[in-house]
């Protein structure tokens, strides 16, 4: 029942999810940057992701490049549809990406690159949320091309999802720093994590309630058998993750809040998957229609099956090398 196109949909979904949770916490650090008062705290927060941010962002290239490879039609429709938020996101990622290096190369302009880091991270997160909202709303397709207008992506709903992603990434960033730091900054981030978690969960709730209004099909996908059996597991697990998150924050745990926050993102992503399947672009482009010919899917799959486990292996190794609490006196630069 699963063919090549479905397998590829799963791989692309995995790449996008990996991007969201990995770049999520380092974009979150950029969003929280204004609340770090001393230069030393900012240095520490940035250093906690300096060795890994580049790898995290590579998953975004994998999402885009992979989509072009195996779902070229989806790629060709979604990018013109999201022209402005995508372009803005790319520009924002340029500012925040170079800030990692430029910040250390200058005294006088350090505040300028701090602003680039904050603005770039926040804008990129917001644009990603807008893109999500615009996809959920649905994209007009006619004749193998985007058929809507230039502002179709902009709506109260997509702005809401934009805010949801910014707050959610901030939660990931805060719990990451709880895990990676000690002392004042740890306490400060722990304090922030609670309202951020409440905000994230509230926005997840509102977005979930509004989603069926975008298209009644979503409602059917959640509440008809046999999908309902699976779809009810997601909110149940979400409750568990929420419990672990708040318990961990309250009882002074350092690692469990971050893992629980990651779980919340993974579950939301699964929820979106349940809403979309079997479409790749709602409301009308299916995974099958968008798929490249089998010869493309097969050729790309052979290498992916070999390389993806290797990538996960050495990525995990890189995280392992830089594991544990940051030494406040240690500078990578």
């Amino acid at each position, binding site marked *: 029942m699963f063919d090549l196109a479905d397998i590829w949909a799963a791989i692309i979904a995995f790449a996008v999810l990996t991007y969201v949770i990995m770049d999520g916490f380092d974009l979150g650090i950029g969003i929280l940057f204004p609340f770090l008062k001393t230069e030393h705290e900012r240095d520490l927060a940035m250093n906690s992701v300096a060795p890994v941010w580049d790898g995290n962002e590579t998953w975004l290239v994998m999402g885009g*490049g992979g989509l*072009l490879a195996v779902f070229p039609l989806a790629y*060709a429709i979604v990018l013109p549809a999201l022209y402005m938020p995508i372009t803005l996101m790319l520009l924002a990622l340029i500012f925040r*990406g170079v800030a990692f290096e430029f910040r250390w190369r200058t005294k006088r302009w350090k505040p300028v690159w701090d602003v680039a880091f904050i603005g770039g991270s926040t804008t990129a997160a917001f644009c990603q949320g807008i893109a999500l909202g615009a996809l959920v709303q649905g994209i007009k397709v006619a004749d193998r091309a985007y058929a809507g207008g230039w502002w179709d992506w902009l709506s109260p709903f997509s702005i809401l999802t934009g805010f949801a992603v910014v707050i959610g990434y901030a939660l990931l960033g805060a719990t990451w720093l709880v895990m990676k730091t000690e002392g004042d900054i740890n306490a400060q981030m722990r304090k922030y994590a609670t309202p951020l978690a409440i905000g994230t969960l509230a926005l997840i709730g509102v977005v979930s309630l509004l989603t069926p209004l975008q298209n009644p099909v979503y409602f059917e996908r959640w509440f008809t058998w046999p999908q309902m059996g699976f779809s009810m597991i997601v909110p149940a697990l979400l409750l568990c993750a929420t419990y672990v998150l708040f318990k961990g924050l309250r009882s002074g745990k350092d690692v469990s809040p971050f893992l629980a926050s990651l779980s919340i993102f993974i579950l939301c992503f699964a929820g979106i998957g349940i809403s979309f399947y079997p479409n790749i672009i709602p409301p009308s482009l299916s995974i099958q229609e968008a798929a490249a010919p089998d010869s493309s899917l097969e050729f790309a799959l052979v290498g992916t099956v070999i390389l993806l486990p290797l990538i996960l292996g050495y990525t995990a190794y890189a995280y392992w090398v830089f594991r544990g609490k940051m030494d406040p006196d240690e500078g990578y630069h």
Partner: protein
Amino acid sequence: MFDSFSAEMLARMQFAFTISFHIIFPAFSIGLANFLAVLNALWLATGNDTYRVLFDYWKKIFAVAFAMGVVSGITMSYQFGTNWSVFSDKAGPVIGPLMAYEVLSAFFLEAGFLGIMLFGRERVGHKLHMFATAMVAFGTLMSATWILSVNSWMQTPAGFAMNDQGQFIPEDWWAIVFNPSFPYRLTHMVIAAFLTTSFVVGGVAGWHLLRDHTNAATRKMFSMALWMAAIVAPIQIFVGDMHGLNTLEHQPVKVMAMEGHFDSHPDGAPLILFGIPNEAEKRVDYAVQIPKLSSLILKHHLDAPLDGLDTIDDADEPPIAIVFFSFRIMVGIGFAMLGVGIWSLWARYQGRLYDAKWLHRVAVIMAPSGFVAVLAGWITTEVGRQPFTVYGLLRTSESLAPVAAPAVATSLIAFIITYFFVFGAGTFYLLRLMSYVPENNPFPGEPKEIAHV
């Protein structure tokens, strides 16, 4: 500001602008990553601390250049969709998997081991650090391999069929990856990256030698850079010639534009050294030419006939003047590089390599020449491919996304402002890093090594 341009022209300008900025960084980081791997290996093998000083010196410069390459590259992977979605839909089944392989086998490798290479020596030990450094260098070469396969396929498409939707359907992946121009283009570009880097390294060394010709690290890198130039520049000219012959076989119109051959020459074509192509009158004004030499170079026979642009429909011709000039800039720089290489051999033979002030001055002037040559070469081959995206099969005008001119113009302006601001600052920081003397702990205010955990 761009009122008079069509969406197609604006999208082409945007692609040309963003890819030109982007290629500068890989051209540098491919060479530099491999230089760093060699330096680290030499330090481990010989224990000579000069290599370690140089490794730490160029490592910082690499980190800044690499970051700029990454962020300007992400833009490229999405621009195919935003501005060229019809091309993406049609060519995606062929070029998409090749780009996916670039991400999987190169980008992840570079990114995954970069952190360890830059920050991890004290945490993982010298052996694993050497491994990470080698993986980053290997990743840059893998990246070049896949993306040049993609570009070469667009120049000399092979191994595909067409379906009803006008999509290119892959049939023979071996023929696609190893399409006719790929081996030549890949070799030419990788050598170009090595040459570019060696002239940057040589220029920085020349700058410091003019101030202090006794510094061991400066002398070492000047010597290494100019060995590279002396050995690789002639190889590059030879490879470039082979690449040109391959282009003549598969894309003769491009060669006509490069040569400025508006007219056919049934009994031996002249080599036009200089001139100004006059596209309206279809001739080269003020041409300085050597009779029959073009036929000798391209056909290895003085009297061999060569067709000119008069045999080609105007609608199938690229812009002639751009291709004509950019080709001459590239070739001119190539021969200048060869000259510097030979000069350095002479100075070395006389034992004056570190005292030859004029050689050092010329090395400083030539420091950015590789970038100019790389850009000129790419302009030659890319503009020469026009008016097609997939040569002979898919026209540029039929590749465009359903975009409106104002949207493309707005994003083009945003890219121009961002790139000049961000990469202008980046270039300033790179130059400042290069202005520090290579020695232990060269950069003010920074700890030399990371403390143990």
